[in-house]
């Protein structure tokens, strides 16, 4: 899957309370959650994010709670991919499970990029390219079983397929 998008830059340790504060967790609707997405990290985000935009962050993105509302809010906001140095483990699996594309990238992208710069990414090959100068950044591809979950469109779809086989 190839994507192109505008970047929003964030630092290290963006926690799930910053992605979606607990006060809004009384809904499960991604579009409703998106209205408050990143409210405590960058109050402009929810109002200005456009479908297909990328969130680019430092280390340990999504640390804190297990709330799946965090990747759901990002997906609801139309975020095309989250790229970070590293992810907190629960956020990582939640993103895979709901089909929000994510990539790990060693390079210090929040330091190297300007806000709003355009990136092109190839999820299957784990490639990130800065449109302005064609500079390429490597990213390890996801393990095959996670690619399978994403191929099915999420864990539930994957389980549905397994249950069908069991019948």
């Amino acid at each position, binding site marked *: 899957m190839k994507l192109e998008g505008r970047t929003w830059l964030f630092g290290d340790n963006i926690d799930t*309370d910053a992605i979606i504060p607990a006060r809004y967790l009384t809904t499960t609707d991604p579009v409703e959650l998106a209205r408050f997405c990143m409210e405590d990290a960058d109050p402009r985000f929810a109002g200005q994010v456009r479908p297909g935009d990328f969130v680019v962050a430092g280390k*340990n993105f999504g640390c804190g709670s297990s709330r799946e509302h965090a990747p759901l809010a990002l997906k609801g906001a139309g975020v095309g991919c989250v790229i970070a140095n590293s992810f907190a483990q629960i956020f990582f699996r939640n993103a895979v499970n709901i089909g929000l594309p994510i990539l790990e990238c060693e390079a210090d992208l929040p330091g190297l990029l300007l806000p709003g710069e355009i990136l092109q990414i190839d999820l299957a090959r784990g490639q990130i390219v800065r449109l302005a100068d064609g500079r390429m950044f490597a990213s390890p591809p996801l393990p095959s079983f996670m690619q399978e979950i994403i191929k099915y469109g999420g864990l539930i779809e994957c389980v549905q397929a*397994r249950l069908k086989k069991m019948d």
Partner: protein
Amino acid sequence: MVEKILARAGGKERVQPGDLLTVKIDLALGNDVTAPVAIKEFERLGLDRVFDPEKIVLVPDHFTPNRDIPSAEQALALRRFSSRYGLVHYFEVGRMGVEHALLPEQGFVQPGTVIIGADSHTCTYGALGAFATGVGSTDLAAAMALGEAWFKVPATMRFVYNGRLPSWVGGKDLILFTIGKIGVQGALYRAMEFCGPVIDQLTIDGRLTMANMVIEAGGLCGYIQPDQATFDYLKGRTRQPYQAVYSDHDAVYAETYTFDVSSLQPQVAFPPSPENVHPVGEAKGIQIDQVVIGSCTNGRLDDLREAAAVLKGHKVHPRTRLLVIPATQWIYRQAMAEGLLDIFIEAEAAISTPTCGPCLGGHMGILAGGERALATTNRNFTGRMGHRDSEVYLCGPAVAAASAVAGEIVHPEEVL
């Protein structure tokens, strides 16, 4: 140890860190924030049964007793789901407690078992020798359907605590100190094993506090080797026979940290990160609007006893309000029987029914802009307890109680 439990649950001879495998789970947990999403996903599967109605526990604890109409709808979703699928272990308000205090207390946690919970603090149960970790709602939905979950086997970090703990220093101080040393990414995707003479002497409540905050260091799970104290605690609680798993003498650790904690001061984590840890002396003079004693980290009986020992005969400072939240109905009742609640009320603290409430800025003690709280909870992120311009400092129950009396952060000895 973690490798052994996962190998057994995954039907393998042995596994190594980095291996991916699917394991059978012994228990799956959800709450009123995460289970509604899981239920929605589960229902998309079109099944007429869950994998085992005895192995799913639902606890409405985050926004309950219901905060508002939307949270009431979420709690209702759990109630309806439990009834439709015949879940045996749904804990209604009046019978519930903060989930990670409730499950060990009610005997759901056994050494050597695999427990997943759609709540990040599920790692608490490692204190009793279980493999337990937080997952998301979709994982919970899949687990409710199949009784399975996938994991990457984590490498293990070992933490050895030597010496003898000073007065007023406990499990919370040990774990805050540790997070302060390794940072919030220090154990990313690793297991944290706690051991040494100090851990051997620590009460089960203190051990649960330590394992509870493993997630704050990025850890996948915590682990404390079961010992006589564990078996004594489990006696009369546990629901079925279990087989404890022990670490090998020649177990391989990714890293080992050894600390002598004989002169450790009580620890305080400054906002906005649990790694921003200082000895209590460095927090002196920081004025406090609200103190919260409770949560899955420090709302257990030992915590309330410790707070009461400090508060006895004192009043909460006029500029400060103190909220005490016993984590379960049993703890509440026990605290009443021991006269602890009298001490709290005499000190002019408010006592609440069990709830996660203020810890996550849910309800029952939200902060206004510019306000500052000191809490025995587990997270001090920006806006965690309310307004984005409010602050949360983290500490153990003795410092919390003493600071409520002083109106500012102090060492317990300063008010005694």
